């Protein structure tokens, strides 16, 4: 990353008369946009910039130099699974053969449809479920779709009373938000001191108005919910379905499948678990899987395979159509323009093929190894509220008192200070102030693609920061010092909001 701040906007590089494109000559005579008339035509000028090609290339290249990514450094970012994004995947998703119009008849899109089906089958085996839709665009979209499946299932049975969903109080904010968009009321179930679900507190909540329960396992503290078979049994007994938030699926790969834990519906974030790039906030992909018996409720369109005989010939492009699009009457409806972020699905397929059955479980195990290694190496300097083997991530409750001062004192060195100081050392910050169970939460998730060497560097820096907190707290309070820009005035950004160049 370049420490010199670039900071210009494209609008400041514009000069009237410059162009950065070339288009063919107009070969048609007698047609003019002006014929649309003033009523239907734009009257106001645009502020689109006027730039030549090199100006545009330099502008965005310089901008990229102020950006941190997995390719530039380590992200110990809890719950985000920022693993390496393989370059082969990037190459293959750009093959010209995949650039089809979405309404291309299935006969001419057999390769893409087959790829979609292969990915959904692979995910179903990994999840221990029956069938996946790859149409949802992101994790939250998957959650919403999954909850729609649950509601559609109840409605299909004529059971309209199930309008409530149970969500642990430690859940990520997206869970209740998705439930609300889906028209479900949220019932919170309390957590025990270690962040796992309190089964005794769950029991009285169950009844004929419960549509289901949302959980992630391991939970947001990186702990496996050992009571999961009992929880699933109780929820099923009351007629509800179990929803698995796949945000924390990575450590479970090949070891323990959500379907086997008792979940009925789940989503997976391909941009977490299956290595597709996060892209600074999307495009992601949030496939949703269901247990046998719920497949028909998945969103339309669905990719189906035709007769088994036809399938055999699917490698022959001239064979009769083996894969087709299908719209099911029992489906919850459409949730996307077409089949979701198809380009992301191609990337995930390349990753799944590369890893195979041998390495998919290894990814999970090495991520757990990495997380526990950091936890054990840093507990001397950071407060470890829950002392047990974690899964892919864990939470520190800030610096230990001897380094950061008393948490109750207003001038103690906070988790935010530690996070900002990490940026100076070339690491991304961990997830901070989540989960809400601890005041100074510092949530760390290294993924399996990080080496012991990188982890050792990170551990050394975290210890050094603890020492700095003791010797020179002000150094941390004013961090970062060595990044392209310094701490931001967040209050100004809200109180004097400027969302566009025109507002500056």
């Amino acid at each position, binding site marked *: 990353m370049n420490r010199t701040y670039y900071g210009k906007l494209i609008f400041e590089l514009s000069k009237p008369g410059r162009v950065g494109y070339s288009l063919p000559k107009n070969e048609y005579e007698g047609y003019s946009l002006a014929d649309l008339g003033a009523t239907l035509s734009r009257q106001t000028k645009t502020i689109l910039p006027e730039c030549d090609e090199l100006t545009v290339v330099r502008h965005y290249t310089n901008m990229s130099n102020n950006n941190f990514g997995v390719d530039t450094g380590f992200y110990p970012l809890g719950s985000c699974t920022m693993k390496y994004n393989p370059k082969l995947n990037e190459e293959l998703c750009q093959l010209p053969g995949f650039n089809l119009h979405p309404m291309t008849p299935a006969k001419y899109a057999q390769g893409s449809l087959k790829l979609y089906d292969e990915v959904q089958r692979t995910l179903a085996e990994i999840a221990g479920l029956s069938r996946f839709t790859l149409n949802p665009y992101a994790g939250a979209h998957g959650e919403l779709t999954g909850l729609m499946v649950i509601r559609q299932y109840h409605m299909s049975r004529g059971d309209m009373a199930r309008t409530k969903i149970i969500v642990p109080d430690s859940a990520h904010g997206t869970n209740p938000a998705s439930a609300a968009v889906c028209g479900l009321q949220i019932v919170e179930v309390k957590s025990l001191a270690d962040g796992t679900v309190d089964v005794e507190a769950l029991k009285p909540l169950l009844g004929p108005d419960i549509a289901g329960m949302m959980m992630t396992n391991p939970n947001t503290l990186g702990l496996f919910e050992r009571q999961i078979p009992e929880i699933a049994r109780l929820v099923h007994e009351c007629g509800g379905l179990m929803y698995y938030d796949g945000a924390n699926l990575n450590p479970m790969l090949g070891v323990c499948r959500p379907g086997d834990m008792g979940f009925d519906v789940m989503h997976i974030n391909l941009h977490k678990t299956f290595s597709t790039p996060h892209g600074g*906030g999307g495009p992601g992909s949030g496939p949703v899987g269901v247990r046998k018996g719920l497949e028909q409720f998945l969103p339309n369109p669905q990719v189906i395979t035709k007769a088994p005989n036809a399938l055999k010939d699917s490698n022959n492009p001239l064979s009769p159509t083996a894969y087709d699009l299908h719209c099911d009457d029992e489906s919850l409806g459409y949730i996307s*323009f077409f089949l979701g972020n198809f380009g992301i699905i191609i990337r995930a397929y390349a990753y799944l093929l590369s890893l195979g059955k041998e390495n998919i479980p290894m990814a999970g195990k090495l991520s757990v190894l990495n997380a*526990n290694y950091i936890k054990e190496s840093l507990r001397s300097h950071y407060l470890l509220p829950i002392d047990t083997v974690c899964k892919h991530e864990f939470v520190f409750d800030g610096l230990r008192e001897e380094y950061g001062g008393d948490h109750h004192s207003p001038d103690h060195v906070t988790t935010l200070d530690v996070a900002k100081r990490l940026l100076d050392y070339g690491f991304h910050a961990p997830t901070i102030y989540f989960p809400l169970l601890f005041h100074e939460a510092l949530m760390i998730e290294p993924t399996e693609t990080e080496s012991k060497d990188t982890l050792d560097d990170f551990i050394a820096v975290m210890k050094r920061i603890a020492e700095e907190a003791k010797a020179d707290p002000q150094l941390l309070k004013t961090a970062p010092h060595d990044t392209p820009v310094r701490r931001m005035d967040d209050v100004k950004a809200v109180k004097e909001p400027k*969302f566009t160049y025109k507002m500056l």
Partner: protein
Amino acid sequence: MPTNVTSPSLQGRAGSGSSFKYFPHTADDIQQMLDVIGVRSLDDLYAEIPEEIKLHRELNLPSEKSEEEVRCIIQQLAAQNKPLVCFAGAGSYDHYTPSVVPFLASRSEFSTSYTPYQAEISQGTLQYIFEYQTLMADLTGMDISNASMYDGSTATAEAMMMMVAAAKKRNRVLITKTIQPAVLAVVRTYAKFHGVDLVEVDEKDGTMDKDVARQLIEKDDVAGLIVCQPNRYGIVEDLTGLADLCHEHKALMAVNTMASALAVLKTPGEWRADIACGDAQSLGIPMGYGGPYIGYLCTKEALVRKMPGRLVGATTDADGRRTFVLTMQAREQHIRREKATSNICTAQGFMCLYVAAYLSLMGPKGMQEVNELSYASAHYLHDALLKTGKFEEVFKGPFLNEFTLRVKGDAKVLREALAEKGYLLGVPTLFMPGCLTIASTERRNRQEIDNMVELIKEMAL
């Protein structure tokens, strides 16, 4: 079966560590790390999981593959597709992508970064989103834009939920039946589950029946009206008077527009709409079998707190420099939980870079030219098809680059026969048997059109 691996290294890989290109762990590394943790094996890290729910077998999946094997498999799949010369639209348009756009988008400093919460090391991402917000707000003629929605259909569904949230006590939203069917289908789903009373306004002569809309709005129980531009037949609708009518009755108006057209058609802002929404795929994003695209949602400043999705704002850093930061986060799901305006978090952020780079290259002149060329080629095609005698007009409305004709004969046979010859002629028009909705862009040249028209002339229908 490698279920209970007890050695630190894995079954069949003793002494060689993980030996896979994406895993850096050597056997020594693994042993040293296990020692620090104080467990004997990787499987001991899973000791607390009840045995009865563990998977005591291998995954039933193929074995790992080399790079060349993976390349070969996926290339073969790509080869089983047959891209057709595209005269279809219906929400996805085959526009030209300047080579600079995918080149810049391949910079992994952008693509491999996380959501820019750590603003000090994310100015690149934040800056291009700020540029995107500026460009979309300007194209739509609105005050502000968010940092993207999933696609045009979910953006329209979010606009519907925004209307209900802003109206507080009204739960009815009107939507024109002339909107793209794919958009309407998604909006219906969201309405059904979110509990919105969605009323579909009938059409007349290929455009929304304004009288029906007026009668409904005058009942004073409507939160908002969603109209579109151009519509599902390609017709550019005259929206005169609708916004004022909505505002008189305390309803909001949203316009769904294909983004490229915003450069030349009367903007949602000029129609005095409150919300602009749609898909920005037409701004140089490849058709890619439906995604990734990018939905846009723009609105007036007064509605900012009802707007879903992330927002980037300008501020200053500790040294007083102009910088960019995610702002107004208290509206969002991670803080507001079930009270948030939407559940959206990760959207299509990276596609903002596509849009910003594309519009920076095209500029005002390029956008005018792209639309001029698309208009001319679509009108040329329209007239040429009519001249074959095998098509007839359905509606008279003005169009930009997409139009609907009725085939005199079997439209399905015609479309399939042309596909065999390598052409994708339009999409079947929903609820209009025998009709095709056909599009053209600046990427189609006159020779392609003439060749296809010749084929049609020779066909028996």
